[in-house]
């Protein structure tokens, strides 16, 4: 026993010397790889038992129960394969340590700044981003935070040398925080805490709509002088970009959806949607998908049921809406819990494969990257991972392999290194 520890220690020490900061990005896929004998969770609501999945040059070439393996074979008997999980509307890579201001690049000043772009600030060497991977979270939408129009996001993959490498979809969407019809009491001015009607709500809405109308007009005319903010909005009218509108209350959702559709925005995605279950008809009518808040949240109204946040994703999906889960309001490190959010929703009665869609296939559709990502299918990117057991349950979410575009990425992190270093320390004693 002692000698095994000894060997382990030496191994760990060697590891420790080679990997100091960030795991080295994997090289492009060299040979064809086949995963065999696995339960394939496709991310579209279906499962293939005892399946084989073949990919080469980063793309899935064959998949199914009767497929012949070729190239390097990974025997995954009894294991589970999933599409890479996608983290929407997060500031991953834009802030490293919440309380350390120099490490924070997520919120620029200004209220309507669509021209501010996240991609160029995305830190491809973030230790927090790295820590997503051992749980199966392989892609994310690097998203500016705060203000009314926070800026423009880009979709990135989590194994890259730099932000150009990381980009999966550049400048994919603009993020708009709808005002609230209620506001918190300014207790520091002597008002009681709690919520009261926001008298400025109509004005705040008007300001947004004026901005959108102006941006639209700007796009039609010949402008001698450049307006960067208006210019940045044009993709919303042409349909090449999505508008992510953040709204929680029933009234705010109704206002936002009605006004934005009237303003001629092609693709609107609702983010948050705490009371979206009260207006599913309207959302369905306008074909609005919802990136719903993470279930690990307390009810925000005193009298709401304790399990409303647990059940909400299912309630929306049952009403026929396209639903994904995000945890925009949480610290970035929490985003590695995305699989467990889906698991928790399944525990409240949703079919497990449907719950998986909330963090894979559905999210890819909502973000507009479903041509390559989000599901396991022939012709799609080999962005996937192998887990020893059910990846939605923390007890069995144990990754043995993960691939981004067919590149086999490291599952080590700053955290696993420390774990091994100190386990080694005690083994030596």
């Amino acid at each position, binding site marked *: 026993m002692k000698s095994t520890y000894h060997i382990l220690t030496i191994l760990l020490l060697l590891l420790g010397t080679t990997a100091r900061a960030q795991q080295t990005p994997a090289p492009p896929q060299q040979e064809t790889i086949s995963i065999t004998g696995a339960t394939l969770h496709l991310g579209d609501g279906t499962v293939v038992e005892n399946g084989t999945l073949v990919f080469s040059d980063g793309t899935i070439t064959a998949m199914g129960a009767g497929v012949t393996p070729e190239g390097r074979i990974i025997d995954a008997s009894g294991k589970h394969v999933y599409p890479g999980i996608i983290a929407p509307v997060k500031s991953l890579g834009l802030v490293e*340590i919440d309380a*350390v201001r120099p490490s924070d690049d997520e919120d620029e000043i200004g209220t309507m700044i669509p021209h501010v772009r996240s991609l160029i600030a995305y830190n491809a060497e973030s230790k927090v981003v790295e820590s997503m991977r051992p749980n199966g979270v392989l892609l994310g939408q690097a998203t500016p935070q705060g203000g009314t129009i926070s800026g423009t996001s880009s979709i990135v993959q989590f194994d890259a040398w730099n932000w150009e490498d990381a980009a999966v979809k550049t400048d994919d969407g603009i993020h708009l925080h709808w005002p609230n019809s209620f506001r918190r009491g300014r207790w520091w001015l002597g008002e009681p805490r709690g*919520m009261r009607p926001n008298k400025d709500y109509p004005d705040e809405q008007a300001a947004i709509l004026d901005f959108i109308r102006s941006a639209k007009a700007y796009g039609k005319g010949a402008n001698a002088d450049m307006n960067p903010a208006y210019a940045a909005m044009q993709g919303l009218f042409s349909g090449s970009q999505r508008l992510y509108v953040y709204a929680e209350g029933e009234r705010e959702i109704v206002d936002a959806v009605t006004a934005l559709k009237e303003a001629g925005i092609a693709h609107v995605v609702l983010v948050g949607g705490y009371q979206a279950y009260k207006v599913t008809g309207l959302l369905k009518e306008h074909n609005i998908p919802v990136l719903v808040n993470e279930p690990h949240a307390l009810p925000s109204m005193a009298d709401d049921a304790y399990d409303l946040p647990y059940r909400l994703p299912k309630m929306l999906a049952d009403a026929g809406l396209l639903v994904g889960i995000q945890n925009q309001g949480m610290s970035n490190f929490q985003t590695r819990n995305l699989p467990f959010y889906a698991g928790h929703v399944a525990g409240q009665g949703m079919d497990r494969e449907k719950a998986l869609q909330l963090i894979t296939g559905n999210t890819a559709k909502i973000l507009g990257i479903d041509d390559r990502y989000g599901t396991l299918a022939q012709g799609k990117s080999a962005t996937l991972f192998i887990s020893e057991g059910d990846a939605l349950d923390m007890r069995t979410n144990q990754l043995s392999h993960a691939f981004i575009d067919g590149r086999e990425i490291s599952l080590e992190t700053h955290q696993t290194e420390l774990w091994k270093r100190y386990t080694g320390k005690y083994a030596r004693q």
Partner: protein
Amino acid sequence: MKWKLAIPAILWLGAFAFGQEYYPKNDGVKAADENYTAFTNARIYVSPGQVIDNGTLLIRKGKVVAAGSSVRIPENTVTMDLEGKYIYPSFIDVFSDYGIEKPKRAPGGGRTAQYEATREGFYWNDHIRPEQQALEAYSFDQKAAQALRKLGFGVVNSHVTDGIARGTGVLLALQDEGAEGDRVLEGVSGQYFSFDKSVTSRQSYPTSLMGAMALLRQMYYDADWYARGGSATTDRSLEALLAQKNLVHFFAAGDKGNILRADGIGDAFGVQYVMLAGGQEYENIDQIKATGATLVVPLNFPEAFDVSNPYEAGYISLEDMKHWNQAPTNPGVLHQNGIAFAFTLQGLQKQTDFMPMLRKAIQYGLPEEEALRALTTEPARLLGQADQIGSLQTGRRANFLIASGPVFDENTTLYENWVNGQRDILADMDQKDIRGTYTLTAAGKTFTLELGGKAAAPSLKVKRDTTDLKGKIAYSGDWADLSFTDGDDRYRLAARVQRDADNLQAKTVLPDGKETRLTLKKTAAFEAEKEKEAKEDAAPEVLPLTYPNIGYGYAALPKQEDVLFRNATVWTSEDAGILENTDVLVRGGKIARIGKDLSPGRARVIDATGKHLTAGIIDEHSHIAALAINEAGHNSSAEVKISDVVDPEDPDIYRNLAGGVTSIQILHGSANPIGGRSAIIKLKWGQPASEMLYKDMPKYIKFALGENVKQSNWQSYSRFPQTRMGVEQVFLNYFQRAKEYQAKKDAGQPFRYDEEMEVLAEILRGERFISCHSYVQSEINMLMKVADKMGFRVNTFTHILEGYKVADKMAEHGVGGSTFSDWWAYKFEVNDAIPYNAAIMHNQGVTVAINSDDAEMSRRLNQEAAKTVKYGGMSEEEAWKMVTINPAKLLHLDQRTGSIKEGKDADLVLWSGNPLSVYSKAEKTYIEGVPYFDLETDTQIRSRMAQERNTLIDMMLDQKDGGNKRAPRMNRRERLHCNSL
């Protein structure tokens, strides 16, 4: 007779009879007034229980000479025939701030806190100001006095509403004429206390309710020490406090929970406070009654919310809606429970709401006699002035009201308010009552005019046949001016009222502009009774209380039951491990038997086939269910107790139950190296705080290290310590002082009782355990070395995110670790936090718990425990112990709870599946055999709440026509955490 109103001064009967009679007079000749004044043919309320019909009140020189049915009237008497009018003692408010200059807010502020006192020669804390005298801050306020007289008040006890110890009150008569010598009835009358700091000082301590409580306790200890000659210097605050010892002590509790808090302090120091109530005492009336305190009760019944907009109505909590419905019952409930109380104007949004609110209290069950008592004899008794004010017996001050009828009736007019024998005319009582029904024939048409409402300010309804017309009336002196319109036709009338005729003769301007003189013929007398009866018929609907009286409260408290869980998978958290197909019998709140095929006896059988039974989850680090978390005013706050501020009505209690949590330690926050004492509670939802607290609660205190105590993450540069180096010095210094303190005590030397030092001495004696907020390895190591040096042991490191780096040292010290499953990266000191921490510490022999420090995470601690399986490969059995028996061990509760073992408390959770699985949920949560959470009950509660909400919204919509327009709002409890200041 308008002149009577215009020049009331000449009618100040007896105004010069007392007061400055020995002053020299240079503007005339001295004239004594020895006359009597008699009020005859009145219904006299000598006191609430003593009524004289058709009686006479005789006064002279500002005092009552006699009140009775056959009073001999001397010859030098001015007599006023009241013709059946009512006389009452005038009202008294013991909790007034009338005439007191508003304390000025101290300038400055800024980001850096002020830790020192600004005064010298007074108490060490600026917020203790017992030397403050309301008399000094008082000046006569004619306008305010007049407004109070108009409401029926004659005397108030006024005080400076500022500070924790607020000093003495002053008893003031509200008369206009005369000098202060007449008005100040008692220069030092009662002393006042509160939990609120003075606005005149920026001294930081105390920043919390529990700090204010500790400060009050220390104030009393210090006063005692001072009285024994302990202090070498003069302290004017303590001297005043000691000198005022025998005055009545008023406490501005202002809240049902604060009444209990203040009473606890009073009990410890032999003081019974008279408490200012908050208006929600009806909710915990038994506890309020048990204090034995007399209350001063506000009439602050909330207005109905405007619920016409369904979106906005959604923001109003059931709690707030119910309070609107139930609050008016408060005075009646107090009376029914035999609690003595006086009313106060404090808390009213507008003083003029006083009478309407009082009538509402009566409508909701308060007998009129008790309402009168609470405004007259009760306040007089509280102030020790019952022989002076509050009633109209011989020798009392002539402070009384003359009213047209029963004083609380809506249609009663208050005519006069006499203070110290000085008359103030509020309404002309000689004015004739012209109310009734009249007919008028004008321009060939016949109109019916109904004059209703108050005698002094009648209202007008006009009809032609059955058509309602718009009209108005102004009645002043002897003239009634009426006008109404019939289509485009306008009629204007001015009638001179005649004493001896029922009909009104009116100069009339007809629609065509012609002037004529017409007669309004009185056809029927005014019927006030009719309206009143209609009102009484519609007795207000009051919703029943729940426990607690907020959302998700129980209609009836759940009862302890004997149950047999049949055929469960039992996670014992003991050496017995996980037992399949096992029965667990609960009897008398304890786990009675564990085995197969147990006989239920009388126990209810719950089929647990396919389900998992575990001990209830214990959260070592929680901040729910508390009204304060940090006392940040000093860098050591061992004197404060979270158990002082437990909030049994925090909805997060219920939500935690739904996650299988049964016990929590509510820790002080991490603002200070030495924090405050913990409360350890069971989540007995619906019970008062005293029932939630563990009996023989193990004694704990929170310590903290690192960025929070260094104040690293905000702009604060003045408080010691600013570095980890300084943190060590704080501990060394405090423990050294505690040792010296204890030595002095042990040697029998005189000493100043110091609650903070007492607590630290408990740690040194091994009686109190430390749970220390900690992150990086250097500081963890440091505290263990400080402990070794000072001779105590650290019980628990909480958070302990770098515990894995010093796990061997921790095991050697014998300290446990209570950690997050996977938190990191939120601040610099958690950059090396790893989710494998729990497993590594466990493997080194440290007792490890997974905690939450978060109201949301705590309700799924089962999932957090499961993460130790993923990160570090813990076995499921050991993982489960991290949220049950391990925290129980860390809290020294493992003999009582934390595992399924015969003889232990039946704190149990029935799960739908494996408790560590993300797919499982808690179906039933028991505490000591009481089902505090049950999925089925939860469903029933939800539907009851929906019904109640509907009912209340309907009631509010009905009310809205009455003009209530309170904007909807959501009163949200502030959710507290480690850093909450």
